[in-house]
């Protein structure tokens, strides 16, 4: 269970640290404004400051026991969290597998896994859909539009 407040805080910290990174990096580029024009770091610097200040405000609002937040104590329930993970985790594994397996194999396995494992579809239908997905990707991208999708380290090892 994740409370609304925790979620607000986490997001504010996330945006705030992005802001800090922007401020720090833009100092490298120089933040001057003179008759010779505006330095390349000036604008990102100001923007970074805005992000940091805004995030601080959101952070403080999240910490204070404001009435507005009290009315929604729970942002994500246990069951919702499980559903979220059910979608996101396989997707993340799919993305992580692309460099090794390549786009075609990885997407076929991904489709097969999310359809067959929770038994949304029969084994045979899942298999057919997985194959159809990979084939469609190949025909449209590799053949028709000549966009080469990654073939993966495994394919390279077999000499494709």
């Amino acid at each position, binding site marked *: 269970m994740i409370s609304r407040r925790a979620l607000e805080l986490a997001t504010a910290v996330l945006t705030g640290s992005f802001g800090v990174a922007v401020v720090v990096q833009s100092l490298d580029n120089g933040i001057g404004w003179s008759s010779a024009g505006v330095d390349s770091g000036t604008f990102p610097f100001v923007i970074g400051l805005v992000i940091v200040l805004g995030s601080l405000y959101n952070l403080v609002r999240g910490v204070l026991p404001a009435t507005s937040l009290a009315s929604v104590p729970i942002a994500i329930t246990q069951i919702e969290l499980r559903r979220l993970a059910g979608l996101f985790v396989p997707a993340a594994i799919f993305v992580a597998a692309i460099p090794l397996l390549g786009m075609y194999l990885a997407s076929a396995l991904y489709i097969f896994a999310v359809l067959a494992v929770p038994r949304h579809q029969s084994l045979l239908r899942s298999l057919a859909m997985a194959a159809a997905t990979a084939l469609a990707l190949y025909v449209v991208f590799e053949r028709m539009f*000549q*966009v*080469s999708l990654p073939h993966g380290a495994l394919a390279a090892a077999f000499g*494709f």
Partner: protein
Amino acid sequence: MGRTSSFLLFALALTGAAPALAAWQPQKPIEFVATAGPGGGTDNIARAVQNIITKYKLTDQPIVVVNKAGGSGAEGYVYGKASAGDPYKVIFGTSNAWQQPLVSKVAFNYTDLTPIAAMAQDEFLLWVKQDSPYKTAADYLKAAVTGDFKMGGAQSKDTDEVLTRMIEKAGHVKLTYIPFKSGAEAAVQLAGGHIDSHVNNPSESLGQWRGGTQRPLCAFSPKRLPQGAKITATEGWSDVPTCVEQGLDIAQYEQPRTVWLPGKVTPEQAAFYVDLMKKVQATPEWKDYIEKSSQIDTFLTGAEFDKFIKEDIEHLRQVASEQGWLIK
């Protein structure tokens, strides 16, 4: 791959006919990486070469053109660096392969790539608005002494700005350089009177010259440009005087179109592409492309190309250090 090439060498040793360096042949599709967006000069040359190769079946493998224009082309070079050892990526660029690393913290240098050839040289001219009072480069320089002149160009600390700084030095003037995304944008800004001049390549401003919105004062080349069809009713490229003729002492400034392979490819693989580009250059379609884009046909490879790069870097380093552009 090692097995294939040694097999091919073996086959060649048996026949003994073909030159050993042409031994390598591509076994899968080739990717042409254009370090410019669709429609830019570098993109056009990559596509022109692709068309010629496909038309004459100079290789059996299909060729795909990919645009990697991010970061003024750095994206394409970084991609080339990351593909070290892969002979199926051919990178098309300009002199910014060695120029960019000098002046900005990009994560590549031209030494990360294998040079194949410089295939064409683009000329530079000094352009002013059609109705401006200057008839010659000398007039222009005289008027520019006030220090209020704005020079437009493509990108920052790139070829156009380097040339601008050279003009400042040779003509003893101070110009305000305004960088735009492309030469075409600079040309439109000049037509609108927002800037006073730019140093576009011939093809970038050809339409504007014909349309009577701007005209070239002089060409930064040792001799006048080759005769071609008339552009306006009375004038063609060969009617534009050289800058030296007009008292602006910059005898030569050109931008080569360069072709590279990623680093760590074998000499046989590099030789295959050198040979391929030579074949491309011998076709009438190539001549046609060169003429339509108003470029100069050249072919530098091997030691000559190396020498050209070294000299250009020497020159750039000088300009860049005077301007304080060199990265620490």
